């Protein structure tokens, strides 16, 4: 692997996509600030923080992978002295780093606000819910890189977005989660741990499959 070139490709993506990333960071900050107001504003802040995470999960793969292919920038990138493996490493590294940095900041801000408001019981569910966009992001990134189809990327994005609503309803009905919500301290019961474990497994599997399928590809343009 050409580490120097991978770093250059990551820096390139950071430069080219700095504006949407800054806007998302600003949106996340504003949402958290709104949460401090409490009451209805607090609820709106919580929902908007979740929406910002959903935006983040969509914008990164669509801009850095799908759009690069659609705008025919990929031949330029692949004309550089890199291998397809270097390209995959650079894309996954940039996307995951950018997503994790903003996801951590926004999720920590939201959960920290709950904790300060003496609503620590929400934190396990909050983490499980915050992981939804992370799972969605990894699936979208995998589809964008492996299948290379704008249509399938949109289908994956739409499916993930629709599934959020179902997930909310299902989660609120699971007794092991519902019963602990109003507590002052977080309680990590088996239900929440299983849910988070499944989400983390899907994230790891999506990224591993991305590298696996990319390494078997014979056409890159």
């Amino acid at each position: 692997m050409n580490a120097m070139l991978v770093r250059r490709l990551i820096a390139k993506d950071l430069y080219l996509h700095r504006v949407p990333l800054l806007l998302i960071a600003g949106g996340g900050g504003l949402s958290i600030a709104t949460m401090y107001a409490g009451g209805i504003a607090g609820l709106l802040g919580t929902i908007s923080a979740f929406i910002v995470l959903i935006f983040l999960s969509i914008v990164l793969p669509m801009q850095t992978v799908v759009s690069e292919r659609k705008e025919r920038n990929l031949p330029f990138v692949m004309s550089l002295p890199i291998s397809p493996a270097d390209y995959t490493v650079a894309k996954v590294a940039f996307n995951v780093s950018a997503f994790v940095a903003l996801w951590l900041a926004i999720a920590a801000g939201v959960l920290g606000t709950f904790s300060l408001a003496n609503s620590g019981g929400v934190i396990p569910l909050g983490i499980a819910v915050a992981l939804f966009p992370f799972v969605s992001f990894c699936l979208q990134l995998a589809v964008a890189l492996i299948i290379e189809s704008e249509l399938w990327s949109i289908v994956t994005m739409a499916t993930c977005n629709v599934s959020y609503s179902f997930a909310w309803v299902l989660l609120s009905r699971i007794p092991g989660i519902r019963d602990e919500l109003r507590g002052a301290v977080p309680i990590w019961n088996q239900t929440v741990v299983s849910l988070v474990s499944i989400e983390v497994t899907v994230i790891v599997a999506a990224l591993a499959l991305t590298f696996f399928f990319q390494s078997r590809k014979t056409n890159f343009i």
Partner: protein
Amino acid sequence: MSEFAAQLAGVGKDYRFFSLQDVSLVIPVGQIMGFIGPNGAGKSTTIRILMGLVHQDRGEVRLLGRQMPAAQALAKQDVGFASEDMRLYDAATLDWHMRFVQSIYASWDSAYAQTLIKRFDLRPEQRMKSFSRGQRVKATLLLVLARRPKLLVLDEPTTGLDPVARHEVIRELSDVMLDDHRSVLFSSHNTQDVEQISDQITFIDRGRIIDCRDKEAFLERWRRIRMELPADLALPVLPGVVDVKQSGRLAVATTNAFDARLPNAYEAAGIRVHAVENMTLEEIFVTNVMCSREEVNA
């Protein structure tokens, strides 16, 4: 270093509706190879295989002596590749692109880049999205040329350019070849561009190489002979004649192995030879493709 800048031997690639069949090609160091074919002939597929962007199903490919696609990252260090379907980033300026490419290639020649900016009349501070089609092509070529690659691989670089822009690009490529150690593979369906700068020419059609030789050899060996036949005489079949068109008593024979004895042979058969004409590369190409298709269909 290998005496060949690029070598393809028995290369094949199968798609659902198209196959590249047994493509063998060598580009000697210091030569410009013109790669001509109709749309969909397999030019871009061949070039993508050469660059490691598409992996061949069969055959061997070496780029600057390195095995492809396995060693593509190393090989591409000394190769400048530009294709008709390549776009730079709309949101970034030419200056950003130049700094980006410069950060990757130690061989980047800043002085030459500045010369090209002036020669191509480009503005480095301008974003790519405000560039015209011709300016985009020139900007891409600037990024390729200023890194001083040993091999230039250009896939239809002049497609869609106006005559002035095409002239500027061709002139620049001719200047590049003043360095004896640099080689170019130049694909196009515009035979005029290829004829101007190429040392060697390869024709490809329907996924097969149909002819490959020095440009001068093509121009020397191909001739059109215009004749008038006596009323009762059929045109004899002579070796080297690949195409005959006849309308009444007037006939035109095309040969790909011209010899001064050929018109004499017609004269000896009682046929009056009106003219022996040179052919343009485009005429040679079209005749070659049509003859090849007839052979395949026969």
